[in-house]
């Protein structure tokens, strides 16, 4: 496994202002992620997990401190550069799936490739391959409202990984799924992590997810209170 640095944060601080009040969502977070990790950020609700993922995913910028992702300083990126970075190297999976309702499964998965300007024939090949990974080739023509929650999230996984990004950010990907579907999704992500060396960073408070992780970072009140590698996880490295 490659162990070059993928993500480094240094004294990352994020403040939100709520009217007169200031809420500190991240409080001097310093973390290191190497490429190929399968890592979770856990912690109680409101501890800053989503905020951390959003900043590392270049969807938000820090108040102070630095986040270096794939050798780029997130805070210094323009909107366009951030979009480029996401476009080429990041995949996102959300708690609420967020498939585009008017488009078919195939088209949803195809969309990131359209943005990257792949030719149609290549797109088709890549989409079918991604649907193969999540075992949904038979649903390529279905619309999101015809899918179960588990299937929807598998489509979202396919959409996140179809362009073979370096990093996938998954914000509570199993929160809306039952145990069986959660396990199914995690198995898929784990094998992708192994086959494609994709880095996975989760936020979760789901015990089932934690079982699969090889590293767990714990946030409380915006601070890292624990960071440990789990030897006996569901995956063998």
């Amino acid at each position, binding site marked *: 496994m490659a162990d070059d640095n993928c993500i480094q944060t240094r004294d990352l601080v994020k403040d939100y202002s709520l009217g007169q009040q200031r809420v500190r969502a991240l409080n001097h977070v310093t973390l290191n992620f190497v490429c190929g990790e399968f890592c979770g950020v856990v912690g109680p609700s409101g501890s800053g997990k*989503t905020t951390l993922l*959003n900043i590392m*995913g270049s*969807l*938000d910028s820090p108040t102070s401190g630095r986040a270096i992702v794939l050798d780029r300083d997130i805070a210094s990126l323009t*909107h*366009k550069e*951030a*979009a*480029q*970075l*996401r*476009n*080429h190297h*990041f995949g*996102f999976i*959300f*708690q*609420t799936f*967020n498939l*585009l*309702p*008017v*488009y078919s499964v195939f*088209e949803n998965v195809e*969309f*990131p490739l*359209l*943005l*990257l300007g792949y030719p149609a024939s290549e797109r088709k090949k890549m989409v079918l391959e991604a649907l193969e990974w999540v075992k949904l080739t038979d649903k390529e023509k279905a619309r999101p409202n015809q899918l179960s929650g588990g299937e929807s999230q598998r489509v979202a996984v396919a*959409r996140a990984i179809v362009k073979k990004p370096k990093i996938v950010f998954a914000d509570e990907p199993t929160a809306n799924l039952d145990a069986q579907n959660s396990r199914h999704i995690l198995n898929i992500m784990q094998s992708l992590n192994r086959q494609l060396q994709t880095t996975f960073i989760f936020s979760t408070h789901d015990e089932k997810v934690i079982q699969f992780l090889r590293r767990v970072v714990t946030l409380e009140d915006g601070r890292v209170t624990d960071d440990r590698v789990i030897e006996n996880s569901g995956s063998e490295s």
Partner: protein
Amino acid sequence: MIRFLLKGLLRDRSRSFFPILIVSAGVALTVILYSYFNGVEIDAIRNYAVFATGHVKAMSRAYAEQAELIPNDLALLGVDSLMQDLETNYPQVRWTGRIRFGGLLDIPDENNETRIQGPVTGLAVDLFSVDTPEIDFLGLHRSLVQGKLPQSPGEVLIAEEYAGQLGLSAGSRVTLVSATMNGSLALENFLIAGTVRFGMAAMDRSAMIADIGDIRLALDMEDAAGEILGFFSDEIYKDEDAMAIAAEFNQAAPTDDEFAPVMYALSEQSDLRGMLQQTDSVIGMINGVFIAVMAMVLWNAGLMGTIRRYGEIGVRLAMGENKGSVYRSLILEALMIGFVGSLLGTAIGLGFAYLLQSKGIDAAGMMKSSNVMMSNVLRARITAGSFFVGFLPGLLAILLGTGLSGLSVYKRQTSQLFKELEV
């Protein structure tokens, strides 16, 4: 990408249906109103030209100065040679001499005593030459109500409405009481060959149509004519050409002789030019109002649409589309919607305009006392312009509406769009 947007538009009715509806309604109204004003304008130009001004008109300088008084003592003389000159110099124009006259109609009873008298406005035109264009110009066949067109000297036409008032019909005899060119009393008997209705209050009130030969005799106007009218042979008025002909003609005319002929284009006579400009500015104003109202409605619809689509927009941003490209895609969608809406609206508008063109709106009541040469039945007229006028306002309105509502994509933080999609 365009295919991708198109699919979204087609599948998500709420994204396309309402905006298309608004755009096509606005565009349809624009097309209808445009065609309608167009029709009124074309009708007015035609009526003015045919009954009053020609496309160009020559008169003596003195006659022109008081034309509304019909000063026949100032009429053009030597008309035959003047007409020949005009025909050689301007072969693209058909020339025809006319005499306007006023007077009284005296209607006798069976004892040849005066039964009733009424004022009359007369128009003397060439009715009997083999190749006279006047029958066509005035639409006499079309306008004939009873009797027939005059066949031989001494026969005249009279407005149907006026005939009714005076108790006249085809076959009645009348005496015209008027003044000769030299100012002495003129009395002439005529046989009413038929009655006409032009569908235009100004002409139907008290008009008489006579042959110019008869009137020359009656009014002592040998080889004279009050006015010589010229019509382009395709019967379509072209202002620049008409002005050019008039200017060229006037340049050659002596300036010190008040009986020398001078020529005027249609737009230089009457209040028509003002009227045309007025319709143009009314059309412009209506367009402006439509664009503003449509844009406002579409702005609102666009705002609701964008809010509904925050999820989609958030996901697209997350996948690496930049804000500019999302904004542009919203504009592109708007253009497609605007185009379809304009197309649809134009089709609907043309449909209604066609109805208005073939059926018309009866405005007889409005025209009762009017001296304006406007037909009682106002018809729309579909011209090439009718096919295009709607597109600019349609596209402009939806571009404005979407452009404004789409700005919310820029105003929001990327992560904020996400928060809204996390609920």
